[in-house]
């Protein structure tokens, strides 16, 4: 019937500081077909995954029903460059349940974004108008040229990269 939903999904990823040296990131997924939970513990300052656990309460996918399912292979992986390829590869060795690997990735993204938020909050002086914001982010791309052309905001032609030499 038109307008009646055929499918719904709700995913929530949270990052919390457990202690000075540990972060906990959780990803909860509830949708029409699946109810699952993944938690990772991340050691600081290395951002190394030191523990992982998961629970699948409801799924229609056989590989995700395996009670012996384990994400343990991601223990020891550091959150950082290339992590998606590493996590996908390691999880694929253990299970064909791609959703669980994706949930680990979401936890890792959450950890990175929690630090991004810190950077944006502690920047001093914080931009208060458009011009200051342009200056702030322009300085950011100059200090980290990896940002250049990483998205539309930092693409050639954007005010944020005006006067910035493309990386060689």
């Amino acid at each position, binding site marked *: 019937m038109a307008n009646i939903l055929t499918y719904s*999904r709700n*995913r929530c990823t949270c990052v919390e500081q457990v202690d000075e040296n540990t972060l906990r990131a959780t990803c909860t997924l509830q949708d029409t077909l699946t109810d699952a939970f993944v938690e990772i513990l991340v050691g600081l*300052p290395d951002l190394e995954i030191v523990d992982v656990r998961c629970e699948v309460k409801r799924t229609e996918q056989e590989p995700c029903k395996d009670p012996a399912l384990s994400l343990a292979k991601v223990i020891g992986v550091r959150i950082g460059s290339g992590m998606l390829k590493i996590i996908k590869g390691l999880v694929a060795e253990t299970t064909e349940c791609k959703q669980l690997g994706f949930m680990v990735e979401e936890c890792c993204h959450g950890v990175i974004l929690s630090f991004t938020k810190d950077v944006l909050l502690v920047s001093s002086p914080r931009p208060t108008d458009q011009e200051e914001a342009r200056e702030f982010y322009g300085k950011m791309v100059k200090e980290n040229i990896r940002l250049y052309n990483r998205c*539309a905001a930092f693409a050639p032609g954007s005010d944020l990269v005006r006067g910035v030499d493309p990386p060689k």
Partner: protein
Amino acid sequence: MLKFMRKKTVSVWKKDSRTLIAHGVLDDDIYGIELDVSVNIEDLRISAIEGKWNRWTTPECPRAIPELQRAVGFLIAEPDFSQKAHKVIGRKACRHFANLLLECSHSLREAALLGEWEDRKAAGEEARLGDITAEKAAPPPPPQSPPSAPRAAPVESAACPDEERGIDDKSRVLSADSPGLVIDLHVHTSPASPCSSVPVAEVIEEAKRIGLDGICLTDHNYVWTAPEVAALREEHGFLVLRGNEITTDQGDMLVFGLEEDIKGIIRLEELRKKVLQAGAFVIVAHPFRGFLTFGVGQLGLTPEKAMERSLFQHVDAVEVMNGKVTAKENQFAAEVASGLDLPVTGGSDAHEVSEVGVYATRFYETIRDEKDLIRALRGGNYVPLAYRKEKGF
């Protein structure tokens, strides 16, 4: 205390017999975005996409909206859809829109499965949803085709200068005009590395143009055959050597002298065993490559703490000049290598023509072939250098 929360919701409904629509919302401490994605039920091809920012960071983030149209025509059931979404929408529009697009697309696929299940039941079939899910599971991506067919050409080494003077200080960085043999140890080519856009011939010609003495092809988990590389040497009259950038659970490793074609993710300890058995050499690539908005320093990582990482027990050298990381990250790697007394190298990590030779390694020994390269690497008589900058390119 909670440091960060991201919530995503997706709702899917059937607009008509041919179209499914997903409405996705992403809301977190930093960003607020919405996406409407329409797909054709028959082939799960994106027929329309509209995005909206509710909250964003930079004043230029709104530039992402028109770029979302690049996703129109994508087949969301294709095995490489996720990669395409990251590469096209993530890089040309915004990676948070790419993330929400993946969420919407996965939901659309599951909704389509549910629709098919309902249709089969209505047609009187005894179908289980799990069976349909298994039927529709995406096949593995097709194997990569080699960049060119191996050509039967004689192995002929390019001429190299005679052995030059030795340098003991591994951390010393020399001028590009100093004597020695300058080789870019870290170069990617297309299509061997899917992330590169440069054919090997263009890479070699650029290396020649800027005066490098040689390059190492270090495509991702890709083994060039000896005849292929020999043919390239002969065709271009240039020293082309083979390496391989292998992804391990501890990050990327540049491996020289290992013929085995390693697929998937290998444990570094396991790779180390193979390297030792083959008499090969392993360099940890860009060991401290950080993030887009913060670096390892902001995490409180010190060189002393970083030296404790077990990965350094399994490598022969450290890449301390890499063209894809910041100066601070390269400096950090140099400090760690120095503390561990490990040899250091430089390589551009080029994925574009203009990046070839940004960084390189100067050797003070004759290198005519891969055996010479391994011997030279083992000898430790080399230094990294910022080649392009020092040459004035």
